Protein backbone atom coordinates (compact mmCIF):
# COMPACT_ATOMS: atom_id res chain seq x y z
CA UNK A 1 0.00 0.00 0.00
CA UNK A 2 2.79 2.39 0.93
CA UNK A 3 4.67 1.85 -2.31
CA UNK A 4 1.55 2.56 -4.29
CA UNK A 5 1.00 5.80 -2.43
CA UNK A 6 4.66 6.72 -2.82
CA UNK A 7 4.28 6.31 -6.56
CA UNK A 8 1.20 8.51 -6.58
CA UNK A 9 3.06 11.17 -4.61
CA UNK A 10 5.94 10.99 -7.06
CA UNK A 11 3.75 11.53 -10.10
CA UNK A 12 2.02 14.39 -8.33
CA UNK A 13 5.36 15.97 -7.55
CA UNK A 14 6.50 15.81 -11.13
CA UNK A 15 3.19 17.18 -12.35
CA UNK A 16 3.83 20.51 -10.73
CA UNK A 17 7.35 20.74 -12.09
CA UNK A 18 8.18 22.60 -15.25
CA UNK A 19 7.84 20.48 -18.39
CA UNK A 20 11.13 19.49 -19.95
CA UNK A 21 9.99 19.25 -23.54
CA UNK A 22 9.81 22.02 -26.10
CA UNK A 23 7.65 22.41 -29.16
CA UNK A 24 10.22 21.19 -31.61
CA UNK A 25 9.56 22.62 -35.04
CA UNK A 26 8.61 26.01 -33.63
CA UNK A 27 11.28 26.01 -30.93
CA UNK A 28 14.74 24.63 -31.51
CA UNK A 29 17.18 23.34 -28.97
CA UNK A 30 20.49 25.10 -29.07
CA UNK A 31 23.01 22.95 -30.86
CA UNK A 32 26.52 22.53 -29.53
CA UNK A 33 29.27 23.89 -31.73
CA UNK A 34 30.56 20.39 -32.35
CA UNK A 35 27.23 19.23 -33.75
CA UNK A 36 27.66 16.92 -36.69
CA UNK A 37 25.05 17.75 -39.25
CA UNK A 38 25.54 16.76 -42.86
CA UNK A 39 28.87 17.87 -44.30
CA UNK A 40 29.35 21.06 -46.26
CA UNK A 41 32.18 22.41 -48.38
CA UNK A 42 33.92 25.57 -47.36
CA UNK A 43 34.49 28.65 -49.47
CA UNK A 44 37.82 30.44 -49.52
CA UNK A 45 36.57 34.02 -49.51
CA UNK A 46 40.07 35.49 -49.92
CA UNK A 47 40.60 33.91 -53.29
CA UNK A 48 37.02 33.34 -54.27
CA UNK A 49 37.08 29.63 -54.82
CA UNK A 50 36.40 26.52 -52.77
CA UNK A 51 39.10 25.20 -50.48
CA UNK A 52 38.59 21.79 -51.99
CA UNK A 53 41.17 20.71 -54.54
CA UNK A 54 39.27 17.58 -55.48
CA UNK A 55 41.98 15.30 -54.14
CA UNK A 56 39.66 12.32 -53.51
CA UNK A 57 40.89 11.80 -49.97
CA UNK A 58 37.40 12.05 -48.55
CA UNK A 59 36.03 9.91 -51.32
CA UNK A 60 38.32 7.08 -50.32
CA UNK A 61 37.85 7.51 -46.62
CA UNK A 62 34.07 7.53 -46.80
CA UNK A 63 32.78 4.27 -45.37
CA UNK A 64 29.51 4.48 -47.25
CA UNK A 65 30.91 5.71 -50.55
CA UNK A 66 28.57 8.62 -50.73
CA UNK A 67 31.05 11.13 -52.16
CA UNK A 68 32.09 11.50 -55.76
CA UNK A 69 34.67 14.10 -56.71
CA UNK A 70 36.12 15.22 -60.01
CA UNK A 71 39.19 17.40 -60.17
CA UNK A 72 40.21 19.92 -62.80
CA UNK A 73 43.06 22.31 -63.47
CA UNK A 74 42.45 25.53 -61.63
CA UNK A 75 41.82 28.42 -64.02
CA UNK A 76 42.63 30.94 -61.28
CA UNK A 77 46.00 29.35 -60.71
CA UNK A 78 46.85 29.86 -64.36
CA UNK A 79 46.05 33.55 -63.89
CA UNK A 80 48.20 33.60 -60.79
CA UNK A 81 45.39 34.51 -58.39
CA UNK A 82 45.41 31.22 -56.57
CA UNK A 83 48.05 28.87 -55.27
CA UNK A 84 45.88 25.84 -55.93
CA UNK A 85 47.00 24.14 -59.10
CA UNK A 86 44.05 21.79 -59.11
CA UNK A 87 40.54 22.52 -57.98
CA UNK A 88 37.33 20.65 -57.53
CA UNK A 89 35.27 20.43 -60.67
CA UNK A 90 32.32 18.45 -59.49
CA UNK A 91 31.53 17.32 -55.99
CA UNK A 92 28.51 15.16 -55.37
CA UNK A 93 27.50 14.09 -51.90
CA UNK A 94 24.53 11.85 -51.28
CA UNK A 95 22.98 13.01 -48.01
CA UNK A 96 20.65 10.08 -48.15
CA UNK A 97 23.59 7.78 -47.80
CA UNK A 98 25.89 9.85 -45.60
CA UNK A 99 26.08 8.62 -42.02
CA UNK A 100 27.70 11.77 -40.62
CA UNK A 101 30.72 9.94 -39.26
CA UNK A 102 33.00 12.94 -39.84
CA UNK A 103 35.76 10.79 -41.28
CA UNK A 104 35.84 12.98 -44.40
CA UNK A 105 36.48 16.04 -42.26
CA UNK A 106 39.23 14.25 -40.38
CA UNK A 107 40.82 13.10 -43.58
CA UNK A 108 40.75 16.36 -45.47
CA UNK A 109 44.21 17.87 -45.84
CA UNK A 110 42.89 21.27 -46.84
CA UNK A 111 40.16 21.80 -44.22
CA UNK A 112 37.81 22.11 -47.13
CA UNK A 113 34.93 20.12 -45.75
CA UNK A 114 33.14 20.60 -42.44
CA UNK A 115 30.13 19.29 -40.64
CA UNK A 116 27.16 21.61 -40.63
CA UNK A 117 26.64 22.49 -37.00
CA UNK A 118 23.35 24.31 -37.46
CA UNK A 119 19.83 23.03 -37.65
CA UNK A 120 19.92 23.26 -41.41
CA UNK A 121 22.30 20.35 -41.27
CA UNK A 122 19.63 18.15 -39.76
CA UNK A 123 16.29 19.13 -41.17
CA UNK A 124 16.80 17.59 -44.54
CA UNK A 125 13.57 15.81 -45.34
CA UNK A 126 12.74 15.61 -49.03
CA UNK A 127 10.08 13.92 -51.03
CA UNK A 128 12.52 12.29 -53.42
CA UNK A 129 15.70 10.55 -52.44
CA UNK A 130 17.47 11.89 -55.47
CA UNK A 131 17.02 15.42 -54.20
CA UNK A 132 19.37 14.49 -51.38
CA UNK A 133 22.30 14.22 -53.75
CA UNK A 134 23.97 17.55 -53.31
CA UNK A 135 26.20 19.13 -55.92
CA UNK A 136 29.04 21.58 -55.51
CA UNK A 137 26.85 24.67 -55.61
CA UNK A 138 24.51 23.41 -52.93
CA UNK A 139 27.35 22.29 -50.72
CA UNK A 140 29.16 25.59 -50.99
CA UNK A 141 26.18 27.89 -50.70
CA UNK A 142 26.07 28.23 -46.93
CA UNK A 143 29.76 28.87 -46.58
CA UNK A 144 29.88 31.36 -49.43
CA UNK A 145 26.96 33.36 -48.05
CA UNK A 146 28.71 33.60 -44.72
CA UNK A 147 27.07 32.92 -41.40
CA UNK A 148 28.50 29.46 -41.12
CA UNK A 149 31.45 28.90 -38.82
CA UNK A 150 32.73 25.35 -38.88
CA UNK A 151 34.05 23.78 -35.72
CA UNK A 152 37.70 22.87 -35.92
CA UNK A 153 38.88 20.05 -33.72
CA UNK A 154 41.37 21.23 -31.08
Amino acid at each position, binding site marked *: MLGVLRGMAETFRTMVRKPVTIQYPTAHRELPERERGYPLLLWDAEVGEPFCTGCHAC*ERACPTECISVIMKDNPLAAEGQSKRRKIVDQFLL*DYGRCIRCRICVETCNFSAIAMNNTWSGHEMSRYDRRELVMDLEQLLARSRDGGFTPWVAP
Partner: protein
Amino acid sequence: MTAPHEGPQEAPIVPPEPGTIADLFREALPDIEFVASQGPVDVMLTIDRKDVLQVLRTAKDDPQLDLKYLRCLLGVDHEEAGLEVVYQLYSFTHGHGVTLKTRLPQDDPRVASAASVWKGADWLERETAEMFGIVFEGHPNPVPLLLPDDMTDHHPLRKDNPLAQVEEWQGSRLGAAAANVGHVPAGYESIAGEGGEPEGPSGESGG
Protein backbone atom coordinates in the same frame (compact mmCIF):
# COMPACT_ATOMS: atom_id res chain seq x y z
CA MET B 1 41.23 -5.47 -50.47
CA THR B 2 44.73 -5.36 -49.19
CA ALA B 3 47.45 -4.36 -51.58
CA PRO B 4 48.57 -7.28 -53.71
CA HIS B 5 52.13 -7.57 -52.54
CA GLU B 6 51.13 -7.95 -48.91
CA GLY B 7 48.96 -11.00 -49.15
CA PRO B 8 47.35 -12.61 -46.15
CA GLN B 9 49.89 -13.56 -43.55
CA GLU B 10 49.38 -16.09 -40.83
CA ALA B 11 50.22 -15.08 -37.32
CA PRO B 12 53.44 -16.61 -36.03
CA ILE B 13 53.04 -19.29 -33.40
CA VAL B 14 54.57 -18.12 -30.15
CA PRO B 15 54.52 -20.94 -27.63
CA PRO B 16 53.07 -19.90 -24.29
CA GLU B 17 55.17 -19.82 -21.18
CA PRO B 18 55.09 -22.94 -19.04
CA GLY B 19 52.51 -23.03 -16.29
CA THR B 20 49.68 -21.65 -18.37
CA ILE B 21 46.41 -23.34 -19.05
CA ALA B 22 47.95 -25.20 -21.99
CA ASP B 23 49.77 -27.43 -19.52
CA LEU B 24 46.56 -28.13 -17.66
CA PHE B 25 44.99 -29.30 -20.87
CA ARG B 26 47.94 -31.54 -21.67
CA GLU B 27 47.76 -32.96 -18.19
CA ALA B 28 44.05 -33.68 -18.42
CA LEU B 29 44.22 -35.12 -21.91
CA PRO B 30 47.63 -36.68 -22.45
CA ASP B 31 46.55 -38.52 -25.61
CA ILE B 32 45.51 -35.49 -27.51
CA GLU B 33 47.86 -33.27 -29.40
CA PHE B 34 47.60 -29.56 -28.66
CA VAL B 35 49.32 -26.84 -30.61
CA ALA B 36 49.62 -24.03 -28.11
CA SER B 37 50.18 -20.41 -28.92
CA GLN B 38 50.24 -17.29 -26.78
CA GLY B 39 47.82 -14.72 -28.08
CA PRO B 40 47.72 -11.07 -27.00
CA VAL B 41 45.24 -11.92 -24.25
CA ASP B 42 44.49 -15.62 -24.08
CA VAL B 43 46.35 -18.83 -24.70
CA MET B 44 45.22 -20.41 -27.94
CA LEU B 45 45.10 -24.15 -28.39
CA THR B 46 44.59 -25.78 -31.74
CA ILE B 47 43.18 -29.28 -31.74
CA ASP B 48 42.18 -31.81 -34.34
CA ARG B 49 38.55 -31.76 -35.22
CA LYS B 50 37.94 -35.38 -34.26
CA ASP B 51 38.90 -34.57 -30.68
CA VAL B 52 36.67 -31.53 -30.33
CA LEU B 53 33.86 -33.07 -28.37
CA GLN B 54 36.16 -34.92 -26.00
CA VAL B 55 38.24 -31.83 -25.32
CA LEU B 56 35.20 -29.66 -24.74
CA ARG B 57 33.64 -32.20 -22.38
CA THR B 58 36.86 -32.50 -20.44
CA ALA B 59 37.31 -28.76 -20.35
CA LYS B 60 33.90 -28.38 -18.81
CA ASP B 61 34.04 -31.26 -16.35
CA ASP B 62 37.68 -31.47 -15.32
CA PRO B 63 38.03 -29.83 -11.88
CA GLN B 64 41.46 -28.44 -12.76
CA LEU B 65 40.15 -26.75 -15.89
CA ASP B 66 36.52 -26.17 -14.89
CA LEU B 67 35.77 -24.11 -17.99
CA LYS B 68 32.06 -23.96 -17.39
CA TYR B 69 31.34 -20.90 -19.44
CA LEU B 70 31.22 -20.85 -23.22
CA ARG B 71 31.81 -17.24 -24.00
CA CYS B 72 31.75 -17.34 -27.70
CA LEU B 73 31.74 -19.70 -30.63
CA LEU B 74 32.64 -18.49 -34.05
CA GLY B 75 33.95 -19.45 -37.43
CA VAL B 76 36.78 -18.03 -39.48
CA ASP B 77 37.26 -18.65 -43.17
CA HIS B 78 40.95 -19.08 -43.94
CA GLU B 79 40.32 -19.72 -47.63
CA GLU B 80 42.74 -22.43 -48.78
CA ALA B 81 43.77 -23.23 -45.25
CA GLY B 82 40.22 -24.26 -44.46
CA LEU B 83 37.60 -23.13 -42.06
CA GLU B 84 38.26 -22.62 -38.43
CA VAL B 85 35.89 -22.99 -35.50
CA VAL B 86 36.90 -21.07 -32.40
CA TYR B 87 35.62 -21.70 -28.89
CA GLN B 88 36.16 -19.12 -26.17
CA LEU B 89 35.99 -20.71 -22.74
CA TYR B 90 36.16 -19.23 -19.28
CA SER B 91 36.21 -20.58 -15.76
CA PHE B 92 34.50 -18.68 -12.98
CA THR B 93 36.22 -20.66 -10.26
CA HIS B 94 39.79 -20.37 -11.50
CA GLY B 95 39.40 -17.17 -13.44
CA HIS B 96 41.25 -18.43 -16.46
CA GLY B 97 40.17 -18.53 -20.06
CA VAL B 98 41.32 -20.23 -23.21
CA THR B 99 40.76 -20.08 -26.94
CA LEU B 100 40.26 -23.48 -28.53
CA LYS B 101 40.54 -23.69 -32.27
CA THR B 102 40.04 -26.42 -34.77
CA ARG B 103 40.56 -26.42 -38.53
CA LEU B 104 38.15 -28.03 -40.95
CA PRO B 105 38.88 -28.67 -44.62
CA GLN B 106 36.87 -26.46 -46.89
CA ASP B 107 35.29 -29.27 -48.86
CA ASP B 108 34.20 -31.22 -45.81
CA PRO B 109 33.40 -28.75 -43.03
CA ARG B 110 32.06 -31.06 -40.37
CA VAL B 111 32.61 -30.91 -36.66
CA ALA B 112 30.83 -32.33 -33.65
CA SER B 113 28.24 -30.08 -32.12
CA ALA B 114 28.90 -28.61 -28.70
CA ALA B 115 25.19 -28.13 -28.04
CA SER B 116 25.19 -31.25 -25.89
CA VAL B 117 27.90 -29.75 -23.69
CA TRP B 118 26.59 -26.18 -23.39
CA LYS B 119 23.00 -25.19 -23.99
CA GLY B 120 24.24 -21.80 -25.04
CA ALA B 121 26.13 -23.31 -27.96
CA ASP B 122 22.87 -24.01 -29.74
CA TRP B 123 22.27 -20.59 -31.24
CA LEU B 124 25.93 -19.78 -31.69
CA GLU B 125 26.39 -22.93 -33.76
CA ARG B 126 23.32 -22.22 -35.79
CA GLU B 127 24.72 -18.83 -36.64
CA THR B 128 28.15 -20.19 -37.49
CA ALA B 129 26.60 -22.91 -39.60
CA GLU B 130 24.58 -20.56 -41.74
CA MET B 131 27.34 -18.02 -42.12
CA PHE B 132 30.12 -20.45 -43.07
CA GLY B 133 28.37 -23.61 -44.18
CA ILE B 134 29.91 -25.58 -41.35
CA VAL B 135 27.94 -28.69 -40.45
CA PHE B 136 27.66 -29.25 -36.72
CA GLU B 137 26.97 -32.94 -36.38
CA GLY B 138 24.46 -33.81 -33.73
CA HIS B 139 23.00 -30.34 -33.46
CA PRO B 140 19.43 -30.63 -32.13
CA ASN B 141 17.89 -27.97 -34.35
CA PRO B 142 20.04 -27.19 -37.40
CA VAL B 143 18.04 -24.40 -38.99
CA PRO B 144 19.30 -20.92 -39.85
CA LEU B 145 19.18 -18.38 -37.07
CA LEU B 146 19.65 -14.94 -38.55
CA LEU B 147 19.22 -15.65 -42.24
CA PRO B 148 16.02 -16.66 -43.98
CA ASP B 149 15.24 -20.35 -43.85
CA ASP B 150 15.54 -20.77 -47.60
CA MET B 151 18.90 -19.05 -47.92
CA THR B 152 21.05 -22.16 -48.07
CA ASP B 153 22.83 -21.63 -51.37
CA HIS B 154 25.54 -19.32 -50.13
CA HIS B 155 27.24 -18.51 -46.88
CA PRO B 156 27.67 -14.78 -46.37
CA LEU B 157 30.77 -14.67 -44.24
CA ARG B 158 32.86 -16.90 -46.46
CA LYS B 159 35.53 -15.05 -48.34
CA ASP B 160 34.28 -16.31 -51.71
CA ASN B 161 31.06 -14.40 -51.12
CA PRO B 162 31.93 -10.74 -51.67
CA LEU B 163 29.83 -7.74 -50.87
CA ALA B 164 27.49 -6.56 -53.56
CA GLN B 165 28.46 -3.53 -55.55
CA VAL B 166 27.35 -0.32 -53.93
CA GLU B 167 24.59 1.43 -55.80
CA GLU B 168 25.72 5.03 -55.99
CA TRP B 169 23.04 7.61 -56.34
CA GLN B 170 25.42 10.42 -56.80
CA GLY B 171 27.08 8.61 -59.71
CA SER B 172 24.03 8.86 -61.95
CA ARG B 173 24.19 12.64 -61.86
CA LEU B 174 27.70 12.73 -63.21
CA GLY B 175 26.78 11.52 -66.66
CA ALA B 176 29.73 11.00 -68.93
CA ALA B 177 32.11 12.41 -66.34
CA ALA B 178 31.36 9.43 -64.10
CA ALA B 179 34.19 7.58 -65.77
CA ASN B 180 36.62 10.03 -64.19
CA VAL B 181 35.47 9.41 -60.65
CA GLY B 182 38.33 8.16 -58.57
CA HIS B 183 40.89 9.09 -61.19
CA VAL B 184 43.86 10.73 -59.56
CA PRO B 185 46.02 12.87 -61.79
CA ALA B 186 49.73 12.21 -61.76
CA GLY B 187 51.56 13.86 -58.92
CA TYR B 188 48.64 13.78 -56.49
CA GLU B 189 48.90 10.26 -55.19
CA SER B 190 50.72 11.35 -52.08
CA ILE B 191 47.87 13.62 -51.06
CA ALA B 192 45.10 11.31 -51.97
CA GLY B 193 46.45 8.11 -50.56
CA GLU B 194 47.89 9.61 -47.40
CA GLY B 195 51.15 7.91 -48.04
CA GLY B 196 49.58 4.73 -49.25
CA GLU B 197 49.40 3.33 -52.71
CA PRO B 198 46.59 4.38 -54.98
CA GLU B 199 43.75 1.95 -54.76
CA GLY B 200 41.07 1.07 -57.21
CA PRO B 201 37.74 2.84 -57.05
CA SER B 202 36.13 2.29 -53.72
CA GLY B 203 33.27 0.29 -55.17
CA GLU B 204 35.59 -2.64 -55.72
CA SER B 205 36.49 -3.06 -52.12
CA GLY B 206 34.30 -6.13 -51.76
CA GLY B 207 36.94 -8.69 -52.63
